[in-house]
């Protein structure tokens, strides 16, 4: 019997246990004069019985599924002929793969009789395993259902038991977030440590030259490339800065206008429209930035002689992958992010403050500027910090619209590169997993994580503090 069949059998068993437990409790209740004489409602007795069945059986099934193959493999390995046991690790795994494919009937290749014998053995072992499992589970189901049935007594605290299980389930789910964070840290930490074993951390953090491409040829003597991450961070900062310059004033003013000035009709139309901007996938923005905005900027600005600037540096030079394009588009993407977060905090400012201000005879803009914004300021700052962290971590727009040349510049018309772009370029495609080049991506990831973590931590603290003010 396959796992899925067994699974269905277990489900049926659980259902039966539930029905049995419930009906028995009802019978008992009938004898004793109503459900009131039971400790718990019949539903709980049923559920308790079902849980008795479900938990052990499902655990058994899961364990079996997890270790089934490796145990069989161990058994096979022990029964290999001596010469087979002397094979190199690679050859052995090749052999085992062949056996596997024969046993599962994927390939009909004719192999050597020994191999065929092993395959046969695997098949018979598997059948045996399945049978044992099936028998165990069915027995367990019957026994546990009976146990659950016997357990139904008027004074038995079924509800309390069920509730404890329920709570454990909830607890497990909530700890997942911690495991995720731990997972993130672990998944970047070890690789990063290895990376810093190859490249000194100071060079990585304070070096101003980034050219990991040099390291492609691992046979090249003494070539570890240049891993100074400063240009990446300045690039990231430049683009984020441009994005924030676009997004913050626009988003903020939009939020203010919508929540304070606009009448209901306008708000009902404009707000969801702007929220569409937030829902558009970043890959679309990237596409837009690379194919529409970047050429447009280039066409518009390239060779332009601005009165003051060109005096110093001559006609403008605009790169086809300018930071400006990516920053602009990122800014547009972040507008709704800023505006809806600010909108929330502005709306959270109690109406009574507005009334108070109007009641003193202030105009609407005075109320906004002198009462509402100061009141909402911590929240708005928090919102902006969250937006910044979003901009820093943004990947697809920059991957699509920004070059890979790491240049240490603050000129928005030049092409720069960002942390996330480098991470993707370093990891995409199949390189050796151990090369400094690949590991550098993890190190970048670690630094990015730490930076955004810091920002978020800061932002969340501010937002939280602000929320408490009116609670």
């Amino acid at each position, binding site marked *: 019997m396959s796992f899925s069949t067994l699974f269905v059998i277990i489900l049926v068993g659980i259902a039966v246990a539930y029905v049995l437990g419930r009906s028995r409790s009802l019978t008992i209740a009938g004898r004793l004069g109503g459900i009131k004489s039971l400790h718990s409602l019949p539903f709980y007795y049923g559920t308790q019985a079902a849980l008795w069945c479900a938990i052990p059986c499902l655990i058994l099934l899961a364990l079996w599924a997890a270790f089934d193959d490796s145990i069989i493999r161990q058994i096979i390995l022990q029964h290999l002929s001596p010469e087979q046991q002397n094979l190199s690790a690679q050859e052995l795994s090749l052999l085992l793969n062949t056996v596997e494919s024969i046993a599962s009937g994927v390939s009909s290749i004719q192999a050597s009789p020994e191999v065929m014998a092993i395959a046969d053995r695997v098949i018979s072992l598997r059948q045996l395993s399945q049978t044992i499992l099936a028998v165990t589970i069915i027995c367990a189901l019957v026994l546990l259902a009976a146990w659950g049935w016997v357990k139904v007594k008027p004074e038995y605290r079924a509800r309390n038991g069920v509730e404890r299980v329920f709570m454990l389930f909830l607890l497990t789910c909530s700890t997942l977030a911690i495991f995720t964070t731990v997972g993130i840290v672990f998944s970047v930490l070890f690789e990063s440590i290895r990376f810093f074993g190859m490249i000194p951390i100071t060079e990585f953090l304070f070096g101003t030259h980034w050219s990991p491409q040099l390291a492609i040829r691992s046979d090249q003597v003494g070539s570890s490339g240049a891993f100074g991450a400063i240009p990446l961070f300045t690039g990231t900062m430049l683009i984020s800065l441009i994005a924030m310059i676009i997004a913050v004033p626009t988003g903020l003013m939009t939020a203010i206008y919508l929540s304070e000035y606009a009448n209901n009709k306008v708000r009902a139309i404009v707000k969801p429209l702007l929220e569409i901007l937030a829902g558009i996938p970043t890959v679309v923005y990237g596409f837009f930035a690379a194919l529409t905005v970047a050429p447009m900027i280039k066409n518009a600005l390239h060779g332009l002689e601005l009165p003051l600037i060109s005096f110093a540096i001559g006609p403008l030079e605009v790169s086809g992958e300018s930071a400006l394009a990516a920053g602009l588009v990122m800014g547009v993407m972040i507008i709704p992010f800023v505006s809806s977060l600010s909108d929330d905090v502005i709306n959270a400012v*109690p109406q*009574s403050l507005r009334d108070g*201000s109007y*009641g*003193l*005879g*202030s105009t609407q803009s005075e109320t906004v500027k002198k009462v509402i914004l100061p*009141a909402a300021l911590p929240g708005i700052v928090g919102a902006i910090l969250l937006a910044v962290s979003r901009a820093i971590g943004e990947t697809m727009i920059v991957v699509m619209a920004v070059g890979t040349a790491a240049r240490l510049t603050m000129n928005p018309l030049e092409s720069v590169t960002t942390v996330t772009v480098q991470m993707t370029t370093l990891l995409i495609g199949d390189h050796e997993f151990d090369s400094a080049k690949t590991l550098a991506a993890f190190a970048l990831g670690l630094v990015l994580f730490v930076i955004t973590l810091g920002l978020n931590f800061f932002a969340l603290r501010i937002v939280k503090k602000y929320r408490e*003010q009116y609670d």
Partner: protein
Amino acid sequence: MNDDVLDVADVRAMNEVVQQPVVAKNKITDISEITETVGIPFADNAKMSMRNVDVFYGEKQAIFDVNLDIGVNEVIAMIGPSGCGKSTFLRCLNRMNDTIDICKVTGELNLEGQNIYDPKLDVVPLRARVGMVFQKPNPFPKSIYDNVAYGPRIHGLATRRADMDEIVETSLRRAGLWEEVKDRLHQPGTGLSGGQQQRLCIARTIAVSPEVILMDEPCSALDPIATARIEELIDELSENFTIAIVTHSMQQAARVSHRTAYFHLGKLVEVNETEKVFTNPDHDLTESYITGRFG
């Protein structure tokens, strides 16, 4: 035994027959019969005078033909069942109703003879003259000083720092808060207790030297001790300001006001000296309301 003597049975029987309240003056069962306000709705030295005021929320009329004067330095209380239009009427007096789109006010509302609903009139200076204190204390999340200074600042009432300091101090003193806060003027106003906050709001209102102060259930969010303080304050303020107060608590109206106006379903039923209203009101409805025959 004399048959004429009132014995217990007699008394019971008589009571059965006379199951009626003490008074049955102008008995009203149909609200539409109320056409005119009884008592003394007018004043000789009117600060504000309202004539034939109707207020509509969209199609729905909330105030019907109200005529009322508010005298100089008078405390007038407005009472009545929930939804009778007290707040609506009060908010007409400094056009706070303008913030509600569907609200329409007709009739004549004069502040010292000037029609406040004159389309040419600007609400900003009007609200500086007719201040408002709200149900829930709503200090701005600024320092105590800035809270009080806010009004004078936006209206440009003080140019020099010293002037502003003086306005702030005077206002806080008048609101009976100075002693309690003078050492922490630059701490946030939201850190005060509820009653202190409400007094701060009053200080903020009087800082722009209004002539009239409107209060909409100013104590309903406060505990009894703070309420008593505010009531005390209202009494003191009435020396310099004209005050109109809406309250759900008849006792409060009884305590603080000079005259009491009773609203019922949007109509102004009775206005009288407070003593009179609470011991011997003129109108049957007022009587029934204040004796708890309906809410």
